[in-house]
């Protein structure tokens, strides 16, 4: 009798532990949120949460959405920052030259499209490894930016002479919610539908799981993977334009800061899925977790140096727990 009680007790306790391990991302999220709420009084205020979302979350999320698609297809895109920077360069260049606003937006997006098309032709056309191809693109775009910006001089726009739409995109609000949030929300929904609700999305996952099998099943492997890299570059272009309307400038190489951050976020998100697949929801949580940690530590008064250490340890902790889970399953 006594042993039976202990064993059920053991069972439920193991069940709880298992549940916590399986949902290590959610548990970590709640813990971080609670800890920051207690430690930093200003953290849980509405204004602060909005500013976290606006300043840290929007751009990283948009770039991470593209990265989610690429990683789902079994690839990687190291040139996300380049696409954002090239878009920013073209956009700010044209706005600075007093061209129409819509033309500047189109130019920015085409700049990013160019980066994506280069990646796509290298990876899907010539079949170079994604790591090497996008790294090559990154180096080329570094040179292009240095040549165009006279060795890395930022281009600043003079306030007051800018079109109305510029301010609207940067700091505008609709029904009390910043415009940029709508853009992120729309993109997130679009990517959710693309990745999880369409045939294209299933092909993407098939490509990521077993590209050889996908090929033998008659899936147009090259066109799917080409489209993946183009889409990733285009959303990075959108992020680049949003970045430039926010800071009213083109700052060379500013997109690269997002590269490793977004890769981390996507993979933190994969711990949400039983088989470790990337998903849009997981990525959103991953970015949110990383950005509230940054913001929270800043409020506690830790400087930027310790934030990096903490970010690294956090990625470690979440992944370590999910790693334990997959071993337990096997």
């Amino acid at each position, binding site marked *: 009798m006594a042993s039976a009680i202990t064993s059920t007790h053991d069972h439920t306790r193991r069940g709880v532990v298992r549940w916590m391990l399986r949902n290590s991302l959610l548990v970590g999220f709640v813990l971080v949120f609670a800890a920051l709420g207690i430690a930093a009084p200003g953290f849980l205020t509405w204004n602060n949460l909005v500013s976290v979302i606006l300043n840290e979350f929007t751009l990283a999320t948009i770039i991470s959405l593209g990265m989610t698609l690429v990683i789902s297809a079994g*690839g990687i895109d190291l040139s996300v920052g380049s696409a954002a920077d090239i878009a920013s360069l073209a956009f700010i260049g044209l706005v600075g030259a007093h061209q129409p606003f819509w033309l500047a937006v189109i130019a920015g997006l085409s700049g990013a499209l160019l980066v994506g098309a280069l990646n796509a032709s*290298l990876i899907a056309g010539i079949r170079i490894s994604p790591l090497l191809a996008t790294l090559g693109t*990154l180096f080329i775009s570094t040179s292009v930016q240095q040549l165009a910006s006279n060795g890395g001089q930022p281009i600043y726009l003079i306030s007051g002479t800018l079109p109305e739409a510029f301010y609207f995109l940067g700091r505008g609000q609709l029904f009390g919610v910043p415009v940029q949030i709508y853009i992120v929300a729309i993109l997130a929904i679009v990517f959710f539908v693309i990745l999880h609700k369409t045939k294209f999305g299933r092909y993407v996952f098939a490509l990521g799981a077993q590209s050889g099998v996908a090929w033998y099943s008659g899936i147009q492997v090259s066109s799917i993977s080409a489209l993946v890299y183009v889409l990733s570059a285009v959303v990075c272009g959108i992020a680049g334009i949003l970045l430039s309307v926010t800071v009213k400038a083109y700052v060379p190489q500013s997109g690269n800061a997002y590269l490793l951050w977004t890769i981390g976020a996507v993979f933190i998100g994969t711990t949400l899925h039983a088989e470790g697949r990337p998903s849009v929801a997981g990525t959103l949580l991953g970015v949110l977790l990383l950005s509230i940690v940054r913001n929270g530590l800043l409020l506690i008064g830790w400087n930027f140096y310790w934030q990096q250490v903490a970010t690294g340890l956090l990625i470690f902790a979440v992944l370590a727990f999910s790693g334990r889970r997959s071993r337990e399953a096997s």
Partner: protein
Amino acid sequence: MIYFSLTAPLFLSYSNVLNVVQQSAVLGVLAFGMTTVFISGGAHVISGGIDLSAGSNLGLSAAIYASIIQAGGTDWIALPVTLLTGLIIGAINAWAIVGLKILPLLATLATMNVCAGFELVLTQNTVVPAASPLLTAVAATGSLAVPNIVYIFFCLAAFLLILIEATPFGLRLYAVGGFREAAIAAGIRVNHYVAASYLISGVCGSVAAILSLSLLNGSSPGAGEILLSVVLVALLGVIVSRRSVPTISGTLISSLFIGFLVNGFQLTNVSSYWVNGVQGGLILLVVAGSSFSRRAAY
């Protein structure tokens, strides 16, 4: 290369060649570590071996060495502590990848962040000057007018070349990366070999740190930015090698190639803005050429 030797008379002079080799040493040593990790980890884009912490390992090791010298310590304290730092970083990577079964890409991404953070904490984002007898000796010119760094670089290359290309250890390392299941079936302790490759990469990081300290007379913030160049050199080394597998000799050649490329640009007075782009473009060209010759299926 031929173009540079024709247009810049100095390009092929004895002292310039040595200069280039000296400049390539830091990048080359880091790329050796990366190559070892590539060998043991296999070539898969996402789950394959990669060490993203190489650059920030260099930065943290250099910062530790320079700080010890600044605090009045001698080389005999600083040298072992620095090498130990690299070893510990390698050990953490190895533990995370082998023990916790985290993807190498992510495990080393996390250590990269931690190392870069500690480096900033230690140096407060400033240059820490360091001058000590050992660093001076490393930077000095040895026999035959060859800088000592070049000797160290080539000695390390020779050591790793023999270790990886000519010993049972190396053979098994390739087996682990090439076909993991077969290696397990053959009774190789796969985990030990993977762990060893990350330890080697960690030590390479701290050796590179000492070389860069002696070249630059101190630690400098932003050393971690070398990472992408290291990945590039190691990947280019794969292309250079005859069988398209990562090899130490291939990486040695590719690091010297990049060194000569940068140097040639400087001597022909081409704006340095072009260097990155030409580097990237050339590599894509080489890769494209070699992948056309052997169309791998998906």
